[in-house]
C-alpha cells in the first residue's frame, strides 16, 4: 500500500480521471456482447496511449457513439449507463476547457447532485416507497437483498418460495419474517435521509464540506449490501473528479477499486 499511495498521488487529474473513466466504459458495458466487445476494443486501444485518452475528441466521440446506441432503446437503458454516457461527454467538454480539472470537478459535482436529486424525488412521489412497501416487497423477493432479508428473520427457504411465486406470475401471499416491518422502515428512512443529504451537499455550494461524508455514508452500506459495480464505480470516478486534494482523489480511487473487487468477490462467492 505504501508503494501504491505515492503513485496515485503523482497522477494528475487530467491523467487519472480519464483512466478511471476507461474502466467505467468496461464496467457499464452490460450484458450486450456487441457493446462489451466495442468497449473492450476501445479500452485495449486507448490504455497504452495517454495522449489518446486525454484528448477531448476521444471522449466526445465515445460519448457520441454511446448516446446514438442508447437512444435506440432509451426507455430500457439502465440509469448507470445514462450517467456513464453523460460523464464521457462531460469529460470531453472538460478537456476542452482552459482549466480541465476545475471543469471536470464542476461537471461531476453537478451530475452527482442531479442524479441524487432525481433519485430522492422519485422515492418521495412513489406510491410504494414512503409507505415502506417497496423495501418490504424487495426484501422478500430480490435475491440481491438476501442479507437484510435474513436480518429481518426471513428464512432462506421462504425467500426461495417467494421468488418461485413471483416467477410463476400468479397471485399469492409472500412469506415474511418477524422483523420485516422494522428492517423495511430503517432502510426506507435511512435511504431517503442519506440520498437527500448527498443531493443537497453536491448542489448547494455552501454545504460542500458535507459532500464526502454524505457520499461515503451512502456508498459503504449500499455497496457492502448490494454491490452494483457499474453504478458504484461510475459514482466513485465522478467523486474522484470532484476531489480538490490529492489525498481525497487517492481515497476515491481506492474506493473505486474496492467496489470493483468486492463486486467480483461477491459474484465468486454467491453467484
Amino acid at each position, binding site marked *: 500500500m505504501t508503494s501504491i499511495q505515492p503513485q496515485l498521488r503523482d497522477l494528475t487529474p487530467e491523467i487519472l480521471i480519464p483512466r478511471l473513466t476507461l474502466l467505467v466504459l468496461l464496467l457499464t458495458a452490460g450484458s450486450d456482447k456487441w457493446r462489451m466487445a466495442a468497449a473492450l476494443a476501445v479500452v485495449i486501444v486507448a490504455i497504452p496511449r495517454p495522449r489518446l485518452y486525454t484528448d477531448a475528441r476521444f471522449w466526445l466521440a465515445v460519448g457520441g457513439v454511446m448516446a446514438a446506441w442508447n437512444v435506440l432503446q432509451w*426507455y430500457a437503458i439502465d440509469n448507470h449507463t445514462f450517467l456513464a454516457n453523460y460523464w464521457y461527454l462531460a469529460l470531453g467538454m472538460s478537456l476542452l476547457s482552459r482549466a480541465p480539472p476545475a471543469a471536470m470537478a464542476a461537471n461531476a459535482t453537478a451530475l452527482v447532485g442531479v442524479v441524487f436529486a432525481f433519485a430522492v424525488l422519485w422515492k418521495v412521489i412513489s406510491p410504494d*416507497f414512503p409507505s415502506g412497501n417497496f423495501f418490504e416487497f424487495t426484501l422478500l423477493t430480490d435475491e440481491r437483498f438476501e442479507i437484510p432479508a435474513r436480518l429481518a428473520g426471513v428464512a432462506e427457504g421462504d425467500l426461495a418460495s417467494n421468488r418461485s411465486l413471483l416467477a410463476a406470475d400468479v397471485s399469492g401471499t409472500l412469506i415474511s419474517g418477524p422483523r420485516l416491518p422494522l428492517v423495511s422502515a430503517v432502510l426506507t428512512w435511512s435511504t431517503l435521509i442519506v440520498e437527500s443529504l448527498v443531493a443537497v451537499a453536491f448542489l448547494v455550494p455552501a454545504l460542500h464540506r458535507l459532500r464526502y461524508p454524505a457520499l461515503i455514508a451512502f456508498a459503504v452500506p449500499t455497496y457492502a449490501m448490494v454491490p452494483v459495480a457499474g453504478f458504484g464505480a461510475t459514482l466513485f470516478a465522478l467523486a474522484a473528479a470532484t476531489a480538490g486534494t490529492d489525498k481525497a482523489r487517492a481515497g476515491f480511487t481506492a474506493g473505486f477499486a474496492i467496489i470493483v473487487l468486492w463486486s467480483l468477490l461477491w459474484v465468486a462467492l454467491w453467484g
Partner: protein
Amino acid sequence: MRERILRITIPVVAVVVASFQLYQARAHDQVAWEGGGFGMFATIDAADNRVIISSPPVRLSDSPSVQRALAHPRYLDDLARLIAAGIDRAVTVELAEIVYGDLDVSYRVVARVEETP
C-alpha cells in the same frame, strides 16, 4: 461564457432527460427503473414485475419487442401486431403490473390491445 457552457451543458441535458422520463412514467406508465430518470429502487413497478398476457396464449420470447412493451405500454401495439401476424389469428395482448400490499401479490391490467392479422 465558453467555460460556463463547458461546465453546465451536460448536467442540464441530464435534467432535461430525467424530467422527460419522469413525465413519461407518470403520464404514460413507462417503468421508473430505466430511461434516465434515476427512479431505480424507488418503486415495485419494474419491468421484471410486469407481465404480458396474450389471448390466445402464445409462447413469448425475451425478444426486444417484448422488452419494449414491458418498459412502455406504447409498444404493446407493435407486439400485438407481431403476435397476430405470427399466429395468423386475432389476438388480445394485455400488460399487467404487480400490486403489492400486506404481503399479498396480485396483478392489475394497465394496458390492453386487440389486433387482427
